[in-house]
């Protein structure tokens, strides 16, 4: 007598393989808001001072030159 319940079709086996596949879990993180201060002198950073250097101590947040991107603009370069 055929043991039908132990005989999975190839499709069923493929389905099991797909559903039982071990994969790295995709980590989901929540939205965050971080205030920005100068790591050198601790001063707050104002929008009008630009994004690339501290208006108080001159510390460079980045040495890169900003261009017109998506939200960041060329006018966001400090100085």
């Amino acid at each position, binding site marked *: 007598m055929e043991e039908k319940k132990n005989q999975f079709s190839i499709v069923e086996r*493929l389905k099991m*393989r797909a*559903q039982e596949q071990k994969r790295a879990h995709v980590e989901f993180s929540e*939205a965050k808001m971080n205030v920005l201060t100068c790591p050198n002198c601790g001063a707050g*950073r104002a929008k009008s001072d630009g994004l690339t250097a501290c208006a108080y101590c001159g510390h460079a947040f980045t040495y890169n030159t900003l261009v017109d991107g998506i939200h960041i603009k060329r006018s966001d370069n400090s100085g």
Partner: protein
Amino acid sequence: MSLFFGKKPQAHLVNNQEATDLVTRLQVFLAKLDEKAQGLYQEAKENAQAIADADPDPFKRSYYQFKTGIQGQFQALLQKANNTYQTQVLPKANMFEQMKLTAIYSEWHTKFMYLMADVFQGVQLRDLEKEYREIMDDYNATKEKFHCAQCGAKLEINQFYYIATYIACPYCQTQNTFHPSTKTRMLELITRDLAEYRHQDLKDIYKGIRKEQGIKAAEQAFRTYMRAVMDEMNVIQPGMEMQNERFYQRVVREYTHHGIG
């Protein structure tokens, strides 16, 4: 394609009985493969949507894994057919049988390719509108929660930010960095599909004209469809208008030059 392959015609006629057997044997063999293909097709089709729906992976990798496995099985059937046809059928056929055998094989092959191409048609990998709503609901709820660490004022997130963004406090001007959630970032996985989904009607019109009248005649309908898709992408993920416009130009160029679309 296989019309040109095979042994050189025999100098003498083959016995008719043998000829019939070869043709019959091929028909029987292909019928068995067809039965397997139909069974595979039916069962895969019955399961595909449920597998897509149940796949919790944001990249739907379990569904794709199932799909490539099924395609592997179709390939195994195709290879068996092709190999047998090339090595055990054609070399034994005389010139008169070759035409009949070729016709039989060709017909089987066409039907088979249809099954292979159609098995996953119509599977909706995601409920795109539902996923979009969930992303936007999550975003809209979250953006109300943030306050400026310097002055305590509510930070205004008036746009849809799907990447890390500098946000200044509207009162004290202090800069903050907004980091969207992973859920928000995942929007880019569905933006194009959602845009196309929302303009399925224009796609159907374009495809219809292309089928009836050809690539050149369908060009305007294609442009109309892709324009609508690009505009929709700008609505879903604002800020990339310039880039999307250039992408539109490329897509149109590939259509006009190569009929890709």
